[in-house]
């Protein structure tokens, strides 16, 4: 009897310990993942900030007036401080990383000093311009190295907790890619937008809130929504499963979501349409594209035909790009030779058979309206004189853009180069103010090939 009680007690104790141990283990894991996530965040943030820094410093090189330079330099200052705080959060106490930190504070000092100065009275002199240029080159080097390390971290699923262990134990084991990579960054250095720089086509936050208020037309029914979607789908199959739903209460505008499942080919088309007027906001056809049979230029022609068929008139190609077997084409409205950047429509073409597998008119529908595009106050020559003399101007035109404070302004648009970098510069056609200077991204090296 006593023996049984003892056994029962022991069983309870063992089970209790096991349960407690398991709880502890779970908690420990949760804490570890949490710590790991903090490190990952700091590291990925750092790579992004340095990337941004490189671009921002790059665009200051092409600026001329204090209207754009002071804010840009302030932004550089802000980004450096964020990057510095990211470095501070990484478990690098045991790794010499001070040169990189020094570099960051050097940029911070320089940008702060120049940003608070009255650049109208005392513009950047040649020496400062040269400093800016060398900071730009260095930032580019660091960016490249950091992105390489980041690529490896992502590819091999490296853990910062392991780095910390490796550093603490002082063991040089084989898997210290992060340490090696960061050492390279450090060596390079010793030798020497608020958010992502948006395309001019991205509508500003203010405009996003206006939500399709410019649309004309009657409210459509569910049946009409389905009919429109079918018209876009071009499906010859009889074996279709169609579904339509209304938006929920949380949406700022009314829309229908239509899905058309083609059971023969097992592809699905999803589409959202505005209730008012029945305009297509976007659609996606989810089929796989595994081959390239036509080229980007043919895709361009197909996209133009598609837009014409669906009554999107006076659009002009602004950007095109090829990703594996898909072409993405970005169109903007063009009125009397003025590009209306906020009116942008994107078309995705499958390069196997040239069919349209994606379409987004979100921005176009939000900003398109009948506009009075006024006449410029200043001449193109006057606008050109406002541009930094280091920029070699290659192309010029007129454009309507949304500026930093959300107003639509008529600008002269210039494309120019400094060395290997291309810039897009907008000069206000009424005031001559430099509205926007962007460094346009070159294509990025595939890091896999660099290692």
């Amino acid at each position, binding site marked *: 009897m006593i023996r049984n009680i003892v056994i029962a007690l022991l069983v309870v104790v063992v089970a209790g310990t096991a349960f407690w141990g398991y709880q502890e283990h779970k908690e420990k894991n949760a804490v570890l993942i949490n710590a790991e996530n903090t490190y990952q*965040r700091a*590291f990925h943030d750092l790579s*992004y900030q340095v990337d941004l820094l490189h671009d921002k410093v790059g665009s200051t090189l092409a600026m001329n007036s204090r209207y754009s330079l002071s804010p840009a330099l302030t932004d550089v200052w802000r980004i450096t401080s964020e990057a510095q705080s990211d470095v501070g959060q990484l478990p690098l106490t045991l790794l010499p990383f001070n040169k990189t930190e020094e570099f960051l504070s050097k940029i911070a000092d320089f940008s702060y000093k120049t940003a608070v100065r009255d650049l109208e009275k005392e513009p950047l002199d040649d020496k400062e311009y040269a400093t800016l240029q060398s900071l730009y080159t260095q930032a580019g080097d660091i960016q490249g190295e950091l992105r390489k390390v*980041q690529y490896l971290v992502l590819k091999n699923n490296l853990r910062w907790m392991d780095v910390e262990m490796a550093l603490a134990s002082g063991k040089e084991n084989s898997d210290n890619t992060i340490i090696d990579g960061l050492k390279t960054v450090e060596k390079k250095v010793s030798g020497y937008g608020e958010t992502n720089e948006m395309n001019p086509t991205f509508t500003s936050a203010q405009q996003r809130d206006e939500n399709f208020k410019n649309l004309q037309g009657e409210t459509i029914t569910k049946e009409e929504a389905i009919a429109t979607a079918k018209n876009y789908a071009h499906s010859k199959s009889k074996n279709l499963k169609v579904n339509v739903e209304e938006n929920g209460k949380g949406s700022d505008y009314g829309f229908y979501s239509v899905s058309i499942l083609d059971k023969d080919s097992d592809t699905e088309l999803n589409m959202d349409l505005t209730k008012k007027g029945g305009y297509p906001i976007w659609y996606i056809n989810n089929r796989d594209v595994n081959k390239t049979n036509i080229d980007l230029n043919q895709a361009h022609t197909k996209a133009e035909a598609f837009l014409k068929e669906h009554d999107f008139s006076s659009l002009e190609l602004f950007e*095109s790009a090829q990703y594996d077997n898909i072409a993405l084409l970005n169109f903007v409205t063009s009125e009397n030779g003025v590009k209306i950047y906020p009116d942008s429509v994107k078309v995705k073409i499958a390069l196997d058979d040239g069919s349209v597998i994606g379409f987004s008119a979100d921005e176009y529908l939000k900003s398109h309206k009948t506009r009075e595009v006024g006449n410029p106050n200043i001449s193109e020559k006057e606008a050109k004189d406002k541009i930094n003399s280091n920029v070699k101007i290659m192309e010029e035109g007129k454009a309507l853009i949304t500026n930093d404070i959300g107003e639509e302004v008529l600008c002269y648009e210039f494309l120019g180069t400094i060395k290997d970098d291309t810039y897009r510069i907008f000069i206000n056609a009424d005031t001559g103010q430099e509205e926007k200077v962007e460094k346009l991204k070159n294509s990025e090296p595939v890091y896999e090939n660099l290692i």
Partner: protein
Amino acid sequence: MKGISSKWKWLLLFSCITICFGIYPETRTNAFSSQVIQKGAVGDDVIELQARLQNIGYYNGKIDGAYGWGTYWALRNFQQDFGLPIDGLAGTTTKQKLANASNFNKAWVHEQINKGNEFTYFGGVPIEKQVKAKGNGTGGTATGKAPSKPTTSANLPGGYSQNDIQLMANAVYGEARGEPYTGQVAVAAVILNRVESAAFPNTISGVIFEPGAFTAVADGQIWLTPNERAKEAVVDAINGWDPSGNAEYYFNPDTATSKWIWSREQIKRIGKHIFCK
């Protein structure tokens, strides 16, 4: 002995011929495919375009097979000098004139690209002198590694790096791998809407790793290897597709633990996820 020496002779002759072919490639026969090459294109035709433009001194950039701004300006300058319409499009006439004016050693150029060498292709300089083999000692192993992609550069949607895309794809895959494609694009769009929103961090990594924001991050599922579909969804979202209807939150009603999320006004449902304002 005699047999060996004649064998050597043949070998010598053969290698002479090979070298000759190597140095004097056929330039006019295999020029370009029929495509009109426009900015944003990638592939072999772009490699040829860049190499030919560099050969006659118009293009100083890297021959990487991605038609970017550098190539664009080079081609326009070429078109201007040769009295062609200046449009940055390499059509039949432009390609013909370019092929006549320049040399292109396809085998050599592709060899350098496959080996990952740093190289240029200027005319008037022996090509052997324009190569810098990659790294120390890696040259030997490079041939063993199959080239993964024909080009060495990639187009960047909206200015985001491949690494940013990879990180987002990880998050999307961890959060929504069982969801329909549209649902995956919507999750990616929510991440981007948060980056834009004042109430959330301003970077992709900031949004993804914000404590408690995504369950896949909190339980480690984010480190599963994402498939190509998830990456494609991310690229679509970056390029402006937002199936979520400008949502900043979403949740799975079957597994959501917090009551609070039900108080958000809902926009729509895609697959298992409900997207909210």
